[in-house]
C-alpha cells in the first residue's frame, strides 16, 4: 500500500472515513513508520489549529446594544416561535444580559417616576390655578339631588362611577383601586352614601358665604383638593353591589373633593376654558380667553395691560361686534352682548363679554376669581 496522503490522514483522524477504509488506514499506519509520523503531525496540527481558533472567541460583544437589540426584536417579531427561546448561555452570558435589563428597568422606572412627578405637579398647578375659580353649584346640585334617581342608577353609583372616573383613573394607576368592590365582612354601613353627603354639604355651603364645601366631583368641576377615602356602603346602592347580591357590604374607594368657595354669588357651573388666543388692540397684546358657561354659552375674557380703562365700570349692552365675533358665535346672532370691565389691583384691565346678562357675567367673573 502506498503512503497515505494528508487528506486521508485528516479524514481518518476526523472520523470521516467509512469503516473499511478506516480499518485499512489504521493497519497501514501501524505498519508504516513514516505514515505514523505524519499521523502524529496531523494530530498536532488539528490540536493546534483548534487552540488557535479558540483564541478568536475573545472578541468584543454587545458593543452596539441598541441596534442589536432592535435587530433581535425585529427578528423575533418576524419569528414569534423564537421569542420564547432563550439564548444559549454560551453566547449570552446571564450577567451581561442582566446588567442590560437592569439598565433598561432603571430607565423605565426613571421615565415612569418622572412622568408621575410631572403629572402630579401639573395637577397641583392646575388645582392652584383653579382654586380661585372654585364655585358652588349647590343650587343646581340640590335640584338634581331632589330629582328621584332612576331605579337602576342609585345615587352613590351615579355620584361615583360616571363622573369621578376620569379623575380617579390616575389614582388607580398609582396603585389604588379607585372603585374596587371586594367582599368585606358584614359591617353595618356607617358612612352615608355620597349622594347624602353631597346634599348635606351642599346645604351647608349654601348657608356659608365663604367657607369650605365638600362635594363629589362633578362633570364640569375641577378638583381643588382630593383625598382618597374608603367607605363601607350598602351593596344594594351600587351596580357592583347589585351584581354581587343584596345585603352584602362593599368597600368602595371614592374621591371626595374639597373646594374653597369664595363668593355667595357663584354660577351654577364652572366656566370651562376652551380657547386662549392673543389679539392686538392699539398696539397692545391682549390675551383673550374663551369660556363656556352653563347652557353652552360662550363668554370671552380679555386681559390687557394698561393704559387705563374706567375701573369697575359696567357697560350695558350694546352689541359689540369685536367681542361678539368670538363670544356669541356659537349662540344666537341676535343675542345682546353685555360687557363688564374692571381693573385688577396690579393695573391689569379685564373685559368680560358674552350674550348673557350682566348679573351672569358678574357671576362668571366671581367664578373665575378674577378680581
Amino acid at each position, binding site marked *: 500500500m502506498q503512503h497515505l496522503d494528508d*487528506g486521508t490522514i485528516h479524514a481518518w483522524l476526523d472520523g470521516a472515513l467509512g469503516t473499511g477504509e478506516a480499518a485499512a488506514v489504521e493497519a497501514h499506519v501501524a505498519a508504516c513508520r513514516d505514515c505514523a509520523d505524519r499521523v502524529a503531525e496531523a494530530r498536532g496540527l488539528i490540536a493546534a*489549529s483548534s487552540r488557535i481558533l479558540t483564541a478568536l472567541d475573545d472578541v468584543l460583544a454587545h*458593543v452596539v446594544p441598541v441596534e442589536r437589540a432592535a435587530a433581535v426584536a425585529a427578528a423575533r417579531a418576524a419569528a414569534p416561535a423564537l421569542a*420564547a427561546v432563550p439564548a444559549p448561555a454560551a453566547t449570552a452570558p446571564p450577567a451581561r444580559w442582566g446588567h442590560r435589563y437592569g439598565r433598561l428597568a432603571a430607565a423605565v422606572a426613571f421615565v415612569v417616576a418622572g412622568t408621575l412627578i410631572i403629572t402630579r405637579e401639573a395637577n397641583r398647578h392646575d388645582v392652584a390655578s383653579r382654586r380661585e375659580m372654585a364655585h358652588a353649584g349647590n343650587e343646581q346640585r340640590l335640584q338634581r339631588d331632589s330629582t328621584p334617581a332612576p331605579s337602576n342608577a342609585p345615587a352613590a353609583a351615579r355620584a361615583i362611577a360616571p363622573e369621578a372616573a376620569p379623575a380617579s383613573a390616575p389614582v388607580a394607576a398609582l396603585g389604588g383601586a379607585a372603585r374596587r368592590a371586594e367582599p368585606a365582612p358584614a359591617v353595618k354601613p356607617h358612612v352615608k352614601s355620597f349622594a347624602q353627603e353631597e346634599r348635606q354639604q351642599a346645604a351647608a355651603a349654601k348657608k356659608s358665604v365663604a367657607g369650605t364645601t365638600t362635594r363629589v366631583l362633578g362633570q364640569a368641576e375641577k378638583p381643588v383638593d382630593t383625598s382618597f377615602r374608603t367607605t363601607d356602603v350598602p351593596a344594594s346602592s351600587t351596580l357592583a353591589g347589585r351584581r354581587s347580591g343584596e345585603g352584602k357590604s362593599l368597600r368602595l374607594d371614592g374621591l371626595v373633593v374639597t373646594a374653597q368657595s369664595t363668593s355667595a354669588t357663584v354660577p351654577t357651573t364652572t366656566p370651562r376654558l376652551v380657547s386662549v388666543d392673543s389679539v392686538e388692540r392699539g398696539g397692545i397684546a391682549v390675551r383673550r380667553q374663551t369660556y363656556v358657561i352653563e347652557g353652552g354659552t360662550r363668554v370671552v375674557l380679555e386681559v390687557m395691560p394698561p393704559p387705563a380703562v374706567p375701573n369697575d365700570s359696567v357697560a350695558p349692552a350694546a352689541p359689540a361686534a369685536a367681542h361678539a365675533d368670538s363670544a356669541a358665535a356659537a349662540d344666537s346672532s341676535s343675542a345682546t352682548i353685555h360687557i363688564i370691565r374692571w381693573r385688577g389691583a396690579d393695573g391689569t384691565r379685564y373685559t368680560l363679554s358674552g350674550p348673557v346678562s350682566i348679573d351672569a357675567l358678574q357671576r362668571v367673573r366671581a367664578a373665575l376669581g378674577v378680581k
Partner: protein
Amino acid sequence: MDDAERLFRTYHGMLVRYLTRRLGDRDWAEEVAQETFVRALRQDHLTNERAWVFTVANNLVRDDARRDARRRARLALLREETQDDVVEPEPLSLERAQDAALARRAVNALAERDRLALLMREEGLSYEEIAETLHLSVGSIGTTLARARRRLVEQYEALREPQRGSTGHAAS
C-alpha cells in the same frame, strides 16, 4: 420542544461561534445567526439542517459583505460612539489579546474556502455537510482541511516568531 426551539438550541451556539470566528465581530455574528434562524423558520422542511444553516449563514455573510460594506463602517462608528456604554465581558489580558490578534491574522491569511471549511469543521460539521455547504466533493474536504490546518499553524507560528524574539531580546 417545537422545531424552532430545537433548531435554535441545537445550532445557535455553534453558529454564533463559527460566525464570530469568521467575522471577528460577535454582534454581526449574532445578527447573521438570528437572520439565519428566521429564514430557517420559513422553510417547511430541511433535509440537512446543519448544512442548510451554515450555508444560509455563509450566504448572508457574503451578501452582507457585498451589499453593505458601509454597514461595518457604521457599526465601527457606533461602537466608538457608544464606547462609554459598553460593558466588556471581561478585560482581556495582554497575552490573550495578542493571541486573539495573531489568530485573527493567521485565519485571515487562509484562503476563503480553507477558512470556511476549517471553521465549520471546528463546529462539528461532517465532511458531507461541509462539502454541501461549500459545493465541494466530499473527497476533497480532507485535503482542504489538512491544508487549512497546516497553513493556519504555520502562519500563526510565523507571526509569533518576531514577538518571541523581541520578548527574548527584552528579557536578555
